[in-house]
C-alpha cells in the first residue's frame, strides 16, 4: 500500500532492520536484553537501593553517622535514664520520648530516601530543539557565545532562568543544579550531607519536620537527663549519681551541642518557610531589598501563615524521574534531520543512535562552542553567565582535549576558582562560607553587601548542612574539610576527569 507513496519506502517492505542505526541489534523481534528499570541508567550521581525505591546521594557516610548518633543517644536514654524517671516521675516520659524518637527517625529516613525533586535531563530531541532555538535567537553567527539565560517576569520581579549544560534544559525558577549529585533539583534548598541527599521541593517538608522534631527530642532528652541526675543527686549525692548512670554524661554532652546547632537550624528554616525562601536564595540575598529598591520575593504568598501552609501542607508533587519504570525501546525514530544538528549521546538511555557523522559534527560543534564560551564569559563581568561555567567546565575538557590544544586545556585548571566565588553554586554555598571565614578566600567577588551579612550567616552555614548534634568546633572544620576536599579541586577535577573521559570515549566511538 505504500508503494505508490515514495520509492524509498519500497525497500522498507522487505526488512524491518534499521539501516540508519549503526547497531543491527535494534530489531524488535530480537529482544534478548532483559527489561531494565530506569534507575539503572540514571545519569545523575545517585545511589539506588531496593530496586529503585530508595534514592540517595553518592556520599552517605555522614548520614550513617547521623543515624548512629541518634540511635545511640536515644538508646542510652531509654535504657539508662528512662527506668528511673518512669518510676520517680511519670511513665509518660518514655512514651513521649519514644514517640518523638520514632517521628524523628521516620522523617529522617523519608528525607534521605526520597527523590528531592530531580528534574530529568532533556531528551536528545528536546536538547536539539533548544539548541536550534538558541542559535536562531543568536543570529547563527556561530562565534558569539549563545545566550544561556532567559529572563522572565514573575509577579513583577525579573527572574533570570539559567541554562544547565549538564541537563540541557533551562532551569525553572528556583531550581538549581547540585554538583554533588549532578542533577537539577526543583526548588533546591541545599545538599545536606547529614541526611545524605539534596533537600528540594519534594522532601523539604520532611527535612523541616526532621530538624524540628529532632530539636524537641534533643531538648527533651537533655532536660530529662539533667532531671535524672538531679533526682539521683538528691538521693545519693552528685558523684554517686554520676556513677550510677555514667551514660548520662555522654548524653548531656551530645545533647548540649546538638541543641545549639539544631535549634538554631530549626529557627533558621522556620524563618525561611515563613518568608518562602530557599537557603540558596537567602544566602545569595536574591530577594533582599539591599539589591534594589523594588526587589521582593515573587514567590511569597504575602502572609506567614499561607507561606507555612504552602510549604508544609501543600500538595506533594510526584517524582518526575520514574525510577522504577522500565526502559522502553524507542517509538518511531526521527528521520535524521538534514541540517545535521543532532545531539550526540542521549542522556536518557533511549537508544536513539544518531548517525555517526552527525554525532561527529555535533561533537565538534560543541567543542568549538564550549571552548570559546567560557573564555568570553569569563571576560564579561556578569556573574550570571559565570554560573554556566561549572557545568560548562565539565563538557569543556572533553571536547577540547581532542581537537584543541594548549590554551583551552589550561582552562579546566583555572576554572574551579571562579566558580567558587559565584553565588549560584548553591549546594556549596554554605560550606563555602566556612573556608572563606577560615582562609580568607576571595568571596568579595560576589555581592559586597554580603560580607557584613556573611557574619550572620557563619552560624547558619554551620547549621545549613544541619549537624544533628555534633562536636563543637571540630565538626565545622571537619566537615568543611570534607566538603572542601569534595568541592575544590579533587571533586571538580574528578568530575572534569570523568566528563573528559566520557567525552573522549564518545568522540572516539564516532
Amino acid at each position, binding site marked *: *500500500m*505504500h508503494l505508490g*507513496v*515514495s520509492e*524509498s*519506502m519500497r525497500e*522498507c*517492505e522487505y526488512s*524491518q*532492520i*534499521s*539501516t*540508519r542505526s549503526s547497531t543491527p541489534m535494534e530489531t524488535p523481534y530480537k529482544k534478548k536484553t532483559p527489561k531494565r528499570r530506569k534507575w539503572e541508567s540514571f545519569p545523575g550521581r545517585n545511589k539506588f537501593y531496593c530496586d529503585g525505591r530508595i534514592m540517595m546521594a553518592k556520599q552517605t557516610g555522614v548520614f550513617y553517622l547521623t543515624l548512629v548518633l541518634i540511635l545511640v543517644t536515644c538508646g542510652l536514654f531509654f535504657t539508662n535514664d528512662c527506668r528511673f524517671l518512669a518510676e520517680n516521675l511519670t511513665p509518660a516520659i518514655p512514651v513521649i520520648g519514644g514517640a518523638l524518637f*520514632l*517521628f524523628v527517625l*521516620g*522523617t529522617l529516613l*523519608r528525607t534521605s530516601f526520597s527523590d528531592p525533586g530531580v*528534574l*530529568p535531563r*532533556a*531528551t536528545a*530531541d*528536546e536538547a536539539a*530543539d*533548544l539548541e536550534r532555538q538558541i542559535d536562531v535567537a543568536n543570529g547563527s553567527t556561530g562565534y558569539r557565545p549563545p545566550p544561556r539565560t532567559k529572563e*522572565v*517576569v*514573575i509577579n513583577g520581579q525579573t*527572574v533570570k532562568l539559567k541554562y544547565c549544560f549538564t541537563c540541557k*534544559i*533551562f532551569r*525553572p*525558577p528556583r531550581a538549581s543544579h547540585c554538583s554533588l549529585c549532578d542533577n537539577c533539583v*526543583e*526548588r533546591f534548598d541545599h545538599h545536606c550531607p547529614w541526611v545524605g541527599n539534596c533537600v528540594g521541593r519534594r522532601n523539604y*517538608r*520532611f527535612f523541616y*519536620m526532621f530538624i524540628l522534631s529532632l530539636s524537641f527530642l534533643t531538648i527533651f532528652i537533655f532536660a530529662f537527663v539533667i532531671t535524672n541526675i538531679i533526682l539521683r543527686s538528691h538521693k545519693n549525692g552528685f558523684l554517686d549519681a554520676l556513677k550510677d548512670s555514667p551514660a548520662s554524661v555522654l548524653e548531656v554532652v551530645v545533647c548540649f551541642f546538638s541543641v545549639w546547632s539544631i535549634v538554631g537550624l530549626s529557627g533558621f528554616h522556620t524563618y525561611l518557610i515563613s518568608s518562602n525562601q530557599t537557603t540558596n536564595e537567602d544566602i545569595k540575598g536574591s530577594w533582599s531589598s539591599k539589591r534594589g529598591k523594588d526587589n521582593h520575593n*515573587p*514567590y511569597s*504568598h504575602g502572609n506567614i501563615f499561607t507561606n507555612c*501552609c*504552602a510549604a*508544609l*501542607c*501543600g*500538595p*506533594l*508533587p*510526584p517524582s*518526575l*524521574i520514574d525510577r522504577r519504570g522500565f526502559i522502553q525501546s524507542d517509538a*518511531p*525514530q*526521527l*528521520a*535524521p*534531520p*538534514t541540517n545535521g544538528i543532532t545531539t550526540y549521546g542521549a542522556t536518557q538511555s533511549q537508544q536513539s543512535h544518531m548517525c555517526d557523522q552527525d554525532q561527529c559534527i555535533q561533537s565538534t560543534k560543541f567543542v568549538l562552542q564550549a571552548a570559546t564560551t567560557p573564555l568570553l564569559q569569563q571576560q564579561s563581568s556578569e556573574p550570571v553567565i559565570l554560573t554556566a561555567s561549572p557545568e560548562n567546565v565539565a563538557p569543556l575538557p572533553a571536547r577540547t582535549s581532542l581537537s584543541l590544544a594548549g590554551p583551552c586545556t589550561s582552562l579546566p585548571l583555572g576554572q574551579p576558582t571562579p566558580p567558587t566565588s559565584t553565588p549560584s553554586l548553591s549546594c556549596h554555598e554554605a560550606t563555602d562560607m566556612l573556608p572563606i571565614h577560615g582562609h580568607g578566600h576571595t568571596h568579595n567577588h560576589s555581592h559586597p553587601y554580603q560580607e557584613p551579612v556573611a557574619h550572620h550567616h557563619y552560624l547558619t552555614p554551620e547549621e545549613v548542612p544541619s549537624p544533628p548534634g555534633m562536636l563543637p568546633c571540630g565538626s565545622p572544620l571537619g566537615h568543611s574539610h570534607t566538603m572542601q576536599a569534595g568541592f575544590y579541586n579533587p571533586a571538580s577535577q574528578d568530575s572534569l576527569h570523568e566528563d573528559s573521559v566520557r567525552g573522549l570515549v564518545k568522540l572516539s566511538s564516532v
Partner: protein
Amino acid sequence: MAETHSLQDLQQPAVSSKVFIQRDYSSGTICKFQTKLPSELESRIDKQQFEETIQTLNNLYAEAEKLGGKSYLEGCLACLTAYTIFLCIETHYEKVLKKIARYIKDQNEKIYAPRGLLLTDPLERGLRVIEITIFEDRSIGSGR
C-alpha cells in the same frame, strides 16, 4: 520535510519532526505551558483548538497544585500518620495527573491523531515540555 524515511515500519507512519511547547513561568513555579501555537503546526491545526487544549491542561495542572482546604487537610493527615497513609491512598496530585493522562489520550484520539499529530504527556518529559510529534502527511503523495 524529511525525505529519508524512518525505516521502522509499515504500520507506523514516519515521524516528520517534533515540536516542543515550553513552560510558561510568568506566574511563578506552577506548571503552566505556553499557549502560543508554534509555526510548524499552523497548517495542521486550528489555533483556537490548540489553545483550548493547552489552556485545559494548564487548568488541570493548576488544580493539582492548588492550595486550599482540601490539600491542607491531606497534608495534615499525612503528617499525622507519618506519611504512611500514602501507601494506601493516592495523593490529590496523582489523581489529577491521571485525569490529565486521560484527557491527553482523549484529545489525541479525537483531534490530533486525525491531523497526523501526537501529544506526549508532559509527565513523561519531566513536566518540562509538551512534545508534539508531527507525522508525515500521507494523504497527498510524499511528505512535506
